[in-house]
């Protein structure tokens, strides 16, 4: 394991902020178990829990907390200087951080989604949701990691994207769905396990291409921004 990966993981798990990750997946899991045990028809609770909660809230919010944390927290407290004063090409800093963010997010979100998918329909749906969520975790993480280098308020801007763009506008202005990671994840999961539970207007090819473009594009942006990282406004 590279030193950057190790330090990023320790930084992530060593902060209290990490505890914020636990409640959302637990709620998702709890609701799915509750609905199943009460014998509610999966057609009724499936879309609300899997998409409405799992893919629209848990995945992006967990990605946001982790993605803005892996580098953003170090920028906030100034420890980023220790990593930057090393003769490392900047991609060697961004890629391990992205890997940690995407990996931790994928595990945190894919496990409850898998269980919920199994309870709602089948193992196949569970696996499809987990795989699509892992790809979504990568795209979201790249976006939020880059955001933490572009703005001083990455969490706020990330929330605006998740809640306003994907959440609100996605329901009223169908065009915005083409630029919504959430819709890509739904499209990919639905392709892997076709059921009546997941619905989107975005095609699988658009979803695949856009997920790749977003993941790569924002990673490249992050590397470039880190190369010109300025420590400013620090005079006391």
């Amino acid at each position, binding site marked *: 394991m590279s*030193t*950057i990966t*190790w*330090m990023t993981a*320790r*930084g992530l798990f*060593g902060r209290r902020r990490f505890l914020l990750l636990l409640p959302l997946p637990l709620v998702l899991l709890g609701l799915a178990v509750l609905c199943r045990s009460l014998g509610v028809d999966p057609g009724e609770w499936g879309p609300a829990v899997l998409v409405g909660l799992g893919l629209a809230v848990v995945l992006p919010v967990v990605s946001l907390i982790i993605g803005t944390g892996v580098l953003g927290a170090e920028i906030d*407290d*100034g*420890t980023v*200087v*220790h*990593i*930057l*004063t*090393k*003769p*490392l*090409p*900047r991609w060697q800093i961004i890629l391990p951080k992205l890997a940690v963010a995407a990996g931790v997010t994928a595990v945190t979100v894919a496990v409850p989604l898998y269980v919920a998918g199994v309870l709602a329909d089948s193992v196949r749906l569970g696996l499809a949701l987990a795989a699509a969520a892992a790809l979504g975790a990568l795209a979201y993480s790249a976006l939020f990691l880059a955001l933490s280098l572009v703005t001083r308020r990455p969490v706020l801007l990330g929330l605006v994207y998740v809640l306003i763009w994907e959440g609100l506008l996605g329901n009223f202005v169908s065009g915005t769905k083409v630029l919504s990671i959430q819709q890509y994840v739904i499209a990919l999961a639905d392709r892997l396990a076709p059921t009546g539970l997941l619905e989107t207007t975005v095609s699988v090819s658009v979803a695949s291409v856009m997920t790749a473009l977003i993941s790569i594009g924002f990673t490249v942006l992050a590397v470039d921004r880190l*190369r*010109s*990282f*300025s*420590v*400013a406004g*620090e*005079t*006391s």
Partner: protein
Amino acid sequence: MSTLSLAGVSRWYGNVVAVNDISMTLGAGVTGLLGPNGAGKTTLLHMMAGFLSPSRGTVTLDDEPTWRNPDVYRRLGLVSEREAVQSYLTAYEFVLASAKLHRLADPAAAARRAIDLVELESAQDRRIGTYSKGMRQRARVAAALVHDPQVLLLDEPFNGMDPRQRLHMMQLLHTLGDDGRTILFSSHILEEVEQVSGTVQVMVAGRLAASGDFRTIRRLMTNRPHVFAVRSTDDRALAVALIAEPSVSGVELDRTGLTVRAGDYGAFTRALPRIALNQGIRVRQLVPSDESLESVFSYLVEA
């Protein structure tokens, strides 16, 4: 030996000029970067360390630019002012991580050597979060020294240290400078610079105000005229008497009282009570009005 060169370096933020046309060359030995708070020292250090692009001019380390060039960190170490450290690591882990990130051949040995150098062996296995400010600072210096850089930049390294830690840090900087390294540290305290470095660069309001041997600059600073605000029962009569005094170089009279300029601090403060007594004037107020460091610096700019 490495040389850090600045040629016509300026940095502005919008309309505010933080660093104004500074040129200097730093070679082996310890150099103090002295200036009041807000003079632009940190901005200058950040440009030297490649953390800020100059708006104009160039900063080079052995003819290579420091901006957008991570390779310079093979030869350059930085101890920034913000004392941020990964407090969940022990000092050894922290310095070892630095050594590994530098891709050193034997990171463990390098980490131990650096910790030795700052005399932190006894506490190296404790979490940095439990350290005092001075110990944290030393851990950061060890991390910055782990790859044995030719150039070390330190931003206000003595801030928050107790006298013993200060002394220790000063000795360390001396040793490093005597070894032929280029050491630059910033400070807003005259006495700190005096004790550590023979060469100083004085910055005031973003500009390089003085540069060279400390003793010469210090003499300029102490020989400056001192300004006092004086109020008495009869300002005009006191002004007449004072201007006859050799230690007084100028007197100004206005509604609020007298402004007296004295060339010799000691002679004037001894003469004033005598003159007042002889003239039967009662002195109500005597305030030295330019004792702040800022005024010392601004005097240097005018000199």
